């Protein structure tokens, strides 16, 4: 006690700086003690929570499967509320349980198809799950809104489409994405109408997700591609080009040709690639004339186009580029030459002296 007293007395005589450091040391010491206790608590808590989630999920899963099969065997479209699993109805009042129930329903929904999904939809629509999801749409927190849209999309709730439409231009990309997926999920190709309403760019990630969902639908009636190809939002044009390729929409050839003079480099490149895929001769001629105006990347893509559908008329053009400084153009030009005029190609092989060119010619000859 006396020593502690001494220490305190001495402490008061220390310069302020040293006093501050000692205070800091004491604060750190107690923070660490508190931190260790908290960490222990957090770990125990998380472990218990994980156990609970696992067991409750199993319980919900069993209930749901029994319910779905029972309703399926009853073979009726009217699902009565009294047949809803009690365990699930009871669990809806707890936030964590609700979260588990919803996740399990989503999981099960993804695993079954056709009429088997109807009881799950009914369960969502006729319980408070629907109200909770709807309420989420008005939340100030972006991730809550996104989660709300996601669940409404999953359970095909089209009555809220007007509210969801408001979010297609949300400031957060995650909310925009969920809103867009909602429309495509619910209204299939017609759902793509949102493309005329969006201001923000569609990322490549968004486009991949949309295309993956569209790919699942059998009815492939696409309207609006012409409008999207002339949109002011370049990402919409890029998406429309992808749609054209995926669904072989050759009828939009003219609109795609018009994109060859688009200001955006990426649009131009994708248009060339698509025209090359469709093997449109007009595109080839137009690009030959404009070749000097193209940038390197566009030139390389153009030569890939020539490689795909070479015709005799391409020969004079190709001959100019068989010694192009760019490796890819050089190789493409030689490949085209080999197809169009084997003799000339063989002569070129004999005449070429430098080793690098010889290697390229050998490779093209071998191929």
């Amino acid at each position, binding site marked *: 006690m006396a020593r502690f007293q001494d220490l305190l007395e001495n402490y008061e005589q220390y310069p302020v700086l040293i006093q501050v450091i000692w205070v800091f040391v004491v604060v750190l010491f107690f923070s660490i003690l508190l931190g260790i206790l908290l*960490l222990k608590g957090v770990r125990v808590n*998380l472990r218990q929570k994980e156990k609970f989630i696992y067991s409750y999920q199993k319980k919900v899963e069993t209930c749901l499967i029994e319910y779905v099969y029972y309703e399926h065997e009853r073979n009726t479209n009217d699902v009565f509320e009294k047949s809803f699993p009690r365990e699930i109805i009871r669990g809806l009042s707890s936030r964590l349980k609700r979260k588990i129930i919803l996740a399990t329903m989503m999981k099960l929904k993804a695993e079954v198809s056709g009429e088997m999904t109807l009881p799950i939809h009914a369960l969502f629509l006729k319980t408070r799950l629907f109200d909770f999801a709807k309420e989420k749409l008005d939340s100030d927190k972006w991730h809550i809104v996104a989660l709300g849209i996601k669940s409404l999309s999953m359970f095909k709730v089209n009555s809220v489409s007007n509210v969801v439409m408001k979010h297609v231009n949300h400031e957060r990309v995650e909310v925009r994405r969920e809103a867009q997926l909602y429309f495509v999920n619910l209204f299939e190709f017609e759902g793509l109408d949102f493309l005329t309403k969006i201001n923000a760019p569609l990322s490549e990630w968004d486009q991949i997700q949309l295309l993956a969902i569209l790919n699942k639908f059998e009815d492939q009636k696409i309207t609006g591609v012409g409008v999207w190809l002339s949109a002011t939002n370049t990402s919409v044009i890029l998406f429309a080009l992808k749609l054209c390729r995926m669904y072989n929409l050759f009828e939009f050839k003219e609109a795609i040709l018009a994109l060859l003079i688009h200001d955006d480099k990426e649009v131009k490149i994708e248009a060339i690639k698509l025209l090359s895929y469709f093997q449109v001769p007009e595109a080839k001629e137009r690009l030959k004339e404009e070749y000097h105006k193209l940038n390197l990347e566009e030139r390389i893509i153009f030569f890939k186009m020539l490689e795909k559908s070479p015709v005799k008329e391409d020969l004079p053009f190709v001959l100019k580029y068989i010694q192009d400084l760019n490796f890819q153009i050089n190789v493409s030009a030689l490949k085209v030459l080999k197809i169009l005029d084997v003799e000339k190609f063989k002569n070129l092989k004999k005449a070429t002296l430098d080793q690098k060119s010889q290697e390229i010619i050998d490779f093209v000859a071998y191929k």
Partner: protein
Amino acid sequence: MDSSPLDISIYVFHFLFIVYTVLVILSYIILAAISAKESIEYVKKNSFVNYSEILNSDVAPSVSIIAPAYNESLNIVENVRSLLSCHYVNYDVIIVNDGSTDDSLEKLIDAYSLVKVRYLFDQPIKTKELREGVYKSTNPAFDKLIVVDKENGGKADALNLGLNVSDSKYVACIDVDCLLLEDAIQKMIKPFLEATEKKVIASGGVIRIANACIIKDGKLLEVNFPKKLLERAQVLEYLRSFLLGRMAWSRLNGLLIISGAFGMFDKKVMIEVGGYDTTTVGEDMEIVVRMRKYMKDTNTQYKVAYIPDPLCWTEAPDSYKILTSQRNRWTRGTIETLKMHRDIGLNPKYKSLGMLSYPYWYVFERMAPLIEIVGIVYLVFLILTERIRWEFAIAIFLAAYLFTVLYSLVAMFYEEFTFRQYKKKGTGIKLVVTAILEPLIFHPFILYAALRGNFDFYFNKKKKWGKMTRKGLSKMSINELKQK
């Protein structure tokens, strides 16, 4: 005023040390706060991401995994198998055998039915010559595999050859001895595909320590906390570095380094800047700095992304000798990179890169070991000249020590609330004990290695990579399985 010049010097020294200590502590607190914000956002953002669509998409961009290998005969077959089992639709694996003197190539040829093929590729980046050439498998199951055998030129040179060979839009550069989780590519490619306003030029992945983990057939089956303090300390160190430091720098768009063990890059930009620098041992940091500089110079809006998910697992050194050698190299790499790009430092043209990231790395990473050793020498001087104020020295030591322990605890909390890899009962207390012991036992070795790195940088220019002996992930796992 009767103060002698020595007293004044001591006073100035005290002042400078206090300022430095306060700045270090403040910077750590700020980084932890930013990191918390970024982690919460990341978890929220990823809570409803569906990766299955990218998995099967025909329009998913192409990715090449480039893995240089030098005398990796022990594990190369297993490791390549792990790389070939990534869940992504459009990718290939390019193994660059960098002049190995062992039977790595033969093992690959046997295991994957490889045959020599004619393979034409451009060489925008100059590299060492091919040795045996390019191999592909006759077995369609290994269609994605390309093995290139070349003259030895070091890791950077091998990666450059991989860049030349790759035909993909993006490249993932990894160490061949790392274990990639199956969803690694899907997650790493996401930032590139999500970007609309700023071009993403690179995305860095988290490296986790696989020592003591159970790995079978190239798959991570069980995460375990290692037994040795040396390995445990590295687990903690990686948690601090990846969950606190890099996460925060990612939010500030100020990441200067993407670990050489696993990172994904935009190939076009990489080639435009000339690929990896073969003259430095810190090629992973150098390329990121050069790419960032290039983007600034060409006035292009860009971002270096960061994915905190534990996607890549590697074997950490389990002996002080190997650890010292590794850290020595890291130190030299940092010094070399900062020296090469010193024109960035405090240059307003480079905005946050020049005014924030570079100075931070210079003062708190590059100079830290030197300042620390000066502090120790100064302390000894004060003791010898009987000028020491023990109440001050002890307070400073305790503050620094306790702050380090607290910072490690914060990293543990972040781990618990995000990725929770060390779930087993009892691991929490082991982590706490490690946090308490690490500054006293592990840190002195790190300091020593950093000082050796400084010494070698100035006085031993010939020193390059240093030896890194590995047991092999699968071997470790087999031993663990046997024990079980």
